[in-house]
């Protein structure tokens, strides 16, 4: 019974912590959904532990805790893969940004050179007049 209380407390605090972070804009809403869903799932399982046996029988696993670990591993794998996707996307964007900044910097320099040449030539024009 005490294990159940600990689990209830842990899953509840995860939900609260995730939502608190989202409300402080530290975590993207879309990214937080999967964590909240996971915590809600854990919360439900601790409230109705017999459901785990039903699920494990449904998957075809004799020993319910093994089914639980399988679910957890699948869940973590999905999250990990999503992170790899995000990293790849961010790397592509950073590359594009660095390239664009460098090109724009080059253009700025060229314009500045052009401008300083132009300004230097101004007084001469006035003198000649």
């Amino acid at each position, binding site marked *: 019974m005490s294990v159940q209380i600990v689990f209830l407390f842990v899953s509840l605090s995860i939900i609260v912590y995730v939502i608190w972070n989202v409300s402080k804009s530290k975590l993207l809403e879309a990214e937080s959904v999967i964590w909240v869903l996971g915590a809600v799932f854990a919360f439900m399982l601790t409230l109705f532990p017999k459901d785990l046996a039903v699920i494990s029988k449904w998957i075809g696993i004799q020993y319910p805790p093994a089914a639980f670990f399988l679910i957890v591993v699948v869940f973590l794998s999905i999250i990990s893969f999503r992170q790899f996707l995000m990293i790849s996307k961010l790397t592509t964007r950073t590359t594009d940004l*660095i390239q664009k900044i460098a*090109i724009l*910097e080059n253009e700025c320099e060229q314009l500045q050179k052009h401008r300083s040449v132009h300004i230097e030539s101004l007084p001469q024009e006035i003198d000649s007049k």
Partner: protein
Amino acid sequence: MNLLKTCIESWLMKCGQSEWTNLRQKGLILIPAYNEEANLPGVYRELLEVVPDHDILIINDGSGDRTNQVARNLGANVVSLAGNLGYGAALQAGFKYAIRHDYDYVIQFDADGQHDPREIHNLIGCLQQTDADIVIGSRYDQPTSYRPGILRGAGTHFFSWLVRWSTGYSISDPTSGFQLIKKRIYSVYAKEGVYPTEYPDANILILMLLLGVRIEEVPVVMRERLAGKGMHVGIIRNIRYVILMVYSIMISMLKANLFKRKGLHRL
């Protein structure tokens, strides 16, 4: 009758115009440089001397040494990346620059002094004669003075065989960094998700060949590297390169099937 006359007139104008633009095609030489402070001045001065009609752009790929300063002191046009992105991404920055400034073709040129600037004329000659989209300066197209190490030679032959196996075309030197690329192609390279940012060698050529791009080769003489170290040094680095390249080639073959439906111009 009047209509026919105007038609002929407009056709003649078009012909004249295309010939006129052909005569003054604008070319840009791209030099990706990573820690090349020792070789850059010599390479740059030689290029200025041999091909004064081309613009030169040095892309500093986040070098740790004084490459950026050396290039600027030469009075060169420099695009300096804020971090080390890799050879492919540095070149891609050059393609993006070329699009912005509307060049008809770009020439990739190594900063280490291995390429002979005089060969650029051969590449352009091939472009005018054959109407190819990509012209590669090949070390192996005919016997030259270039004698690579055994492993290096075996690697090139292996990738050359892979190109022939996957596309049916034969390219003797798919790892050559000495290439001339037309606008039609480099504007595709500039897009995300097409050009490999680390090693753009046989993989991108295979993708282009499968999409029906015409690639020609011109024999060139390669010189020895002037100073410093190249990209392909060390056993682990080379093993990593071969594994990544073979994997990338397989992905390229898959990509070719996806891209074929879209069409090259819509990538």
